[in-house]
């Protein structure tokens, strides 16, 4: 059977995030593009915040309550990771999503407090002491390396699953999961339009506030 797994909002979120992170990687640390880096960072912040809201109010497959599982469930899952079919993130993948979202959120927020000692000063840097600005600036530089490690692991895991016969990538593009099982209840979908409306509101408010 074919199951609608990922709604249009989640898929747009995912691939916009990929593009934005590539842009942020390229523009980060390049003084000529610092203003673009700033805007892309605020854009990512809006994406992440909307994804968090979508994880509470959105389609079932993308809800935290559904894919955040206990360590026990993770251990149980890891005994046979390629045997079961999940209509959301699998137990280990769910934690990977939480980790990536948390890291990207920390990265986007810390960027707002940075100061390049030349001419860029984050829009919230004035709220904290100079010592904190220094700390958050180096944090922002160091965390990015860890984000790259997380993304490398994310890509590697998807390759491993694909090699072992579980293609997780196609559903993230088409939204549909093809499976031989016929007894699965498709996750309830919320119209992606609500996600896009939430995102539009977040983008507008954050750009008005932070750029």
């Amino acid at each position, binding site marked *: 059977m074919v199951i609608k797994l990922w709604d249009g909002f989640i898929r747009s979120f995912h691939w916009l995030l990929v593009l934005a992170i590539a842009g942020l990687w390229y523009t980060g640390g390049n*003084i*000529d593009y610092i*203003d673009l880096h700033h805007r892309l960072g605020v854009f990512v912040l809006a994406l992440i915040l909307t994804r968090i809201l979508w994880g509470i109010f959105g389609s079932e497959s993308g809800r935290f309550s559904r894919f955040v599982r206990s360590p026990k469930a993770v251990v149980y899952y890891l005994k046979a990771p390629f045997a079961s079919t999940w209509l959301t993130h699998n137990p280990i993948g769910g934690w990977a999503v939480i980790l990536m979202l948390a890291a990207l959120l920390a990265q986007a927020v810390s960027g707002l407090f940075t100061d*390049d*000692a*030349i*001419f860029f*000063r984050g829009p919230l840097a004035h709220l904290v002491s100079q010592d904190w600005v220094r700390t958050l*600036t*180096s944090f922002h*530089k160091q965390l990015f390396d860890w984000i790259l490690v997380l993304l490398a692991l994310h890509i590697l895991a998807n390759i491993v699953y694909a090699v072992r016969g579980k293609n997780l990538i196609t559903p993230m593009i088409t939204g549909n999961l093809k499976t031989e099982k016929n007894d699965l209840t498709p996750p309830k979908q919320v119209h992606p339009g609500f996600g896009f409306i939430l995102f539009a509101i977040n983008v507008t408010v954050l750009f008005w506030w932070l750029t």
Partner: protein
Amino acid sequence: MKNTQPARSLTVRVLLASMAGLTLLTGAAVGINTAQASAFTNASDAVEYRQKTFSLIRENFQYMASMVRGERDFDAEMFKTRANTLYHLSHVPFEAFTGAGENATANSDALPVIWENWSDFEAKRDTFQAAVKELVAAAESENMREIRPKFMDTARSCQQCHQGYRAD
């Protein structure tokens, strides 16, 4: 009265002489202190001098940045003034990079590697000063399209030196 006068003037003379001696000594002492401060044999003085002048450089650079980035209306006269001030300032902090001992002070962001790669540091300093000079010349054009690339050259020269020579 007449008998006491010589004795008095002797007292006065001794007093004056000792005052003069004291003044000389004090003056000499002050003189030595001044010499020490300007030659930056005192590490924390040198660090403070650099930090103060770099913060003035930054102040002026950021003012210009706000015009280059369109956050503030372009005022050609004000821009020229700031560019000139930056030019004068561009030499000042480097007079206080006098010795490797200075970075021992906890408050300095200047990395010890500066004194290990001194000629490279000097080259980067020269790049910065040359960029500022070109910025001043571009400012005379009163044309933002000519100013912007020179301004970015200067910004890049700051960054190239910060990378590796300034603590994160």
